[in-house]
């Protein structure tokens, strides 16, 4: 202990106030535990400040502008002008309200908030260095800890982030102007969401992807819908190419050099380069080894079904604990961690974690694909409903995509769903509930759905899987 340190104790120490950490802290406090939440940067973590929320704000703004300017077919004529600075300002307002809300919620639930950077000095002690020079530090002892330090964008060699030319996803969400030409390295979900956004805002977007398609983990027919729509919006795809280096161009822009596996080189003239090749866990500075915790070869902290690390009274939740690196998974894990600490019979027994990609159209998936169900030993049966057969979809002007449901043929249990189409991120919630509840195809098909809604597509898909669809041809 450093001389001058103040030592205080807490029952539950939560490190990192993202969607895993703040949720854990609030639930722990609700359980009557003396809870302290340490945050070094901003309440709400990457999700609220640099991820989910700001990106959705810009996706909505850019989508609205694009819609308005492309609705002649329904008799709407407009030529919207986008004030990027104003849009970002509005987005910041949303973020401020949410992060302020998180802080208020924590305080209202009796969570002690400490601003600073925590590092372990032992199995039951951390030192928290307060921000800025000369702010000092304090030593905190704890009975239980929850590590929820999240993740950050991966940098690739030669493409260190620098706001004026090499953007991280965070930079792309804070830009005050729309670049004329945007080169995006990485065709994953972050790259594709931002590609769609900037294409709609008027940028010429080129996506460079090492693999031969976008959105690697998704099924081909799901990818195709998004890829074709992105191409319609003017996004250029360069598959099988990896970014090798960049250089300043004589015209004031930059040259993005790429290389194929065979050594074939290409160069693209761009004004900004966005690198979106994934996220990595944040554990540096935590001194986990002082607590006896190791990370795996990808840097994640391994945890068990009670979110416990190898050191039982220290839990890890969210991105830092590995896949799925999703905010809602982190929150779920945070609640489990807090309840386990409180002695409740909680465990990570979720059957499926839904995921959404906010491209145009959106993707929503949960549970198993048909192939995964087969691999898991089920005899899957699949039903689909294309949105071009949905009355509601037609009235929105968006009929791309489909809703698909995967079930076990023998028992009828719903195993998974893949939806690509309008509002897929919302529609997937019903399938998630069905999976979690152990509902059968019949349960979903026999549940009356509002007409006319997009959600009817889920019901229709379930009927289709049973060979009883009314609005589609049964297969």
């Amino acid at each position, binding site marked *: 202990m450093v001389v001058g340190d103040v030592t205080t104790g807490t029952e539950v120490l939560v490190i990192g106030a993202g969607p895993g950490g703040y949720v854990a802290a609030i639930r722990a406090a609700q359980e009557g535990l003396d809870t302290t939440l340490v945050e070094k940067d901003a309440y709400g973590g990457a999700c609220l400040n640099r991820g989910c929320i700001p990106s959705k704000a810009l996706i909505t703004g850019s989508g609205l502008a694009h819609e308005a300017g492309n609705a002649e077919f329904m008799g709407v004529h407009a030529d919207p002008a986008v004030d990027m600075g104003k849009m970002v300002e509005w987005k910041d307002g949303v973020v401020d309200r949410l992060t302020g809300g998180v802080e208020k919620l924590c305080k209202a639930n009796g969570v002690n908030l400490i601003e600073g950077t925590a590092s372990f000095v032992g199995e039951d002690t951390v030192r928290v260095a307060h921000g800025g020079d000369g702010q000092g530090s304090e030593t905190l002892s704890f009975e239980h800890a929850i590590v929820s330090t999240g993740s950050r964008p991966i940098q690739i060699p030669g493409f260190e982030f620098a706001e004026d030319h090499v953007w991280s996803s965070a930079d792309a969400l804070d830009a005050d102007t729309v670049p004329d030409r945007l080169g995006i390295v990485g065709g994953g979900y972050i790259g594709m969401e931002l590609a769609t956004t900037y294409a709609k805002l008027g940028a010429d977007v080129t996506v460079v992807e090492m693999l031969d398609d976008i959105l690697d983990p998704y099924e081909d027919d799901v990818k195709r819908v998004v890829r074709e729509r992105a191409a319609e919006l003017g996004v250029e795809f360069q598959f099988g190419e990896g970014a090798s280096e960049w250089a300043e161009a004589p015209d004031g822009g930059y040259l993005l050099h790429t290389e194929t596996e065979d050594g074939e080189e290409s160069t693209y003239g761009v004004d900004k380069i966005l690198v979106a090749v994934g996220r990595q866990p944040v554990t540096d500075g935590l001194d986990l080894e002082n607590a006896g915790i190791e990370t795996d070869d990808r840097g994640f902290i391994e945890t068990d079904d009670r979110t416990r690390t190898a050191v039982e009274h220290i839990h890890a939740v969210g991105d830092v604990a590995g896949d799925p690196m999703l905010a809602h998974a982190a929150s779920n894990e945070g609640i489990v961690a807090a309840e386990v600490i409180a002695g409740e*019979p909680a465990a990570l*027994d979720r*059957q499926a974690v839904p995921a959404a990609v906010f491209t145009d159209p959106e993707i929503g998936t949960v549970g198993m694909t048909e192939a995964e169900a087969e691999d*898991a030993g089920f005899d899957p049966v699949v039903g689909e409903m294309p949105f071009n057969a949905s009355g509601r979809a037609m009235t929105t002007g968006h009929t791309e995509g489909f809703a698909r449901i995967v079930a076990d043929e*023998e028992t009828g249990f719903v195993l998974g769903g893949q939806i690509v189409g309008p509002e897929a991120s919302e529609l997937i919630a019903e399938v998630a509930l069905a999976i979690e509840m*152990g509902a*059968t195809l*019949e349960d979903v098909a026999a549940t009356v759905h509002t007409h006319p809604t997009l959600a009817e597509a889920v019901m229709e898909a379930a009927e289709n899987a049973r060979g009883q669809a009314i609005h589609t041809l049964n297969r």
Partner: protein
Amino acid sequence: MTVEEFKLPDVGEGVAEGELVSWLVAPGDRVEEDQPVAEVETDKALVEVPSSYDGVVEELFAEEGEMVPVGDVIISFRVDEDGDAEATAGDDAGTEAEPEPESADEPASEPVTEEPDAEPDTPSGRTFAPPSARRLARELGVDVAAVEGSGPGGRVSESDVRAHAEGDAGSADAGGADDAPEPRPAPTPTDTGSDDRKAAVSKRNGDDATASAGAAAGGPEPAGRDTTLATPATRKAARERGVDLDDVPTDETRDGEAFVTAEAVNAYADALESTAEPAPEPEPVDLDAGEAAATPADAAATAGVSATDASGSGDETVPYRGVRRTIGKQMERSKYTAPHVTHHDTAEVDALVEARAELKPKAEASDVKLTYMPFVMKAIVAGLKEYPYLNSELREDDEEIVLKGEYNLGIAVATDAGLMVPVVEDVDEKGLFELADEVNDLAARARERKLKPDEMNGGTFSITNFGAIGGEYATPIINYPETAILGLGAIEERPVVRERDGASEVVPAPTLPLSLSIDHRVVDGAVAAEFANAVMEHLENPLLLLNE
């Protein structure tokens, strides 16, 4: 009128479970608050469990001989608000004439909050049960993957989990496709549950027949005991594997009762599965005693499959619980708290041997079996009077040492279940024969595990007579928070050096090796040695004991 459930209360510090030794009431009996309803043996003692209610016993949920985790419902009472309890009791008499070991007769809307007896693993595969049911399963310590679901496609509901936890297959749709999938209302204590119950009983009889047939076709023979001791985890394993614990062969016993391990259950279930298809339905407990008695009892003694043989692995896991764990904790606390020093010396006890030989016939005449122990106890008291710090307790938090005014000597007794230390009180006030009687009685009851908790409390100094089994010296661990313990080696003839005719010679003489452990925080080595000298003086000159 309401039905109240009563859970096995926490009857002592750190007690996780207890064996339900005997029921003192039967269904239909009227009980008053605080009236004892059951005898439960926990850790080291037999305790009576008092009722919390005035009312009529509705149902017993545990069998005699069963290990019951603290917090499990063991009995339910109908608590009369309008005084018609007796009349209602008569209505259900048909189904309650004999104790039902377990039952699903419990309103689904009234969750039982039981302590989990173990942390159930989270199933890795898909589980077709809603989150609420999965959480309940964890709460009740049930592996949700082992629960038979009654919903469409076998979906597991909360009531399925509850039924499984209670070991009742009756509410689970065990029949498969033949049974009409029509919804069946959950039975409640006041409805016509008796019909449901009977249906379940006859169904199970059928299952039993199947199982027996399977066994007859070459499977392992069911042991068919009346009672079997097992840990809750083992009982859970038995439920999951569909094995009746009483049928699992075992060589192990606890307190004279057959004791079955999880390995034995699995080995037996494996053997059953390999010979009988399909496997028997889960059959947690015998429904009635008559049925169990009908199973050939002699099969028990000769049943062949032993736990270790069949499991194929050399290791055997034995639960660290109950008495074993209590001993462990106590030893750990003592050894890690009190810095032990052990002083060794040897008393030459020719005179003591003679004295005892002289007194023995007299004792026998009074029906007393006189050992050396009473002499040693009196000698110790003599020493303690001279060196009161050996008869003390350090209360560190209060910064004081309490020199005890009483001479209560704990006598370590080895029992099948582990070490017990009953206490003989006021040794200074009792005669040799009286002490002999009391020691014999306490030791006998310790071996039968019939000691009451207060008979093991209040000791001020302890004796461990390992010499009864063999050996000379040991390093005994103090019975914390006492300050000292004296270990006795075997009294045997050993070579000693004595003077005869002005010359030293080695001669055989009966000696008693002594091992005195002290808490060095309280007593220094010199005092320990002086105390040992005083005790030896009295042992070597038993006439001095007349003074005590």
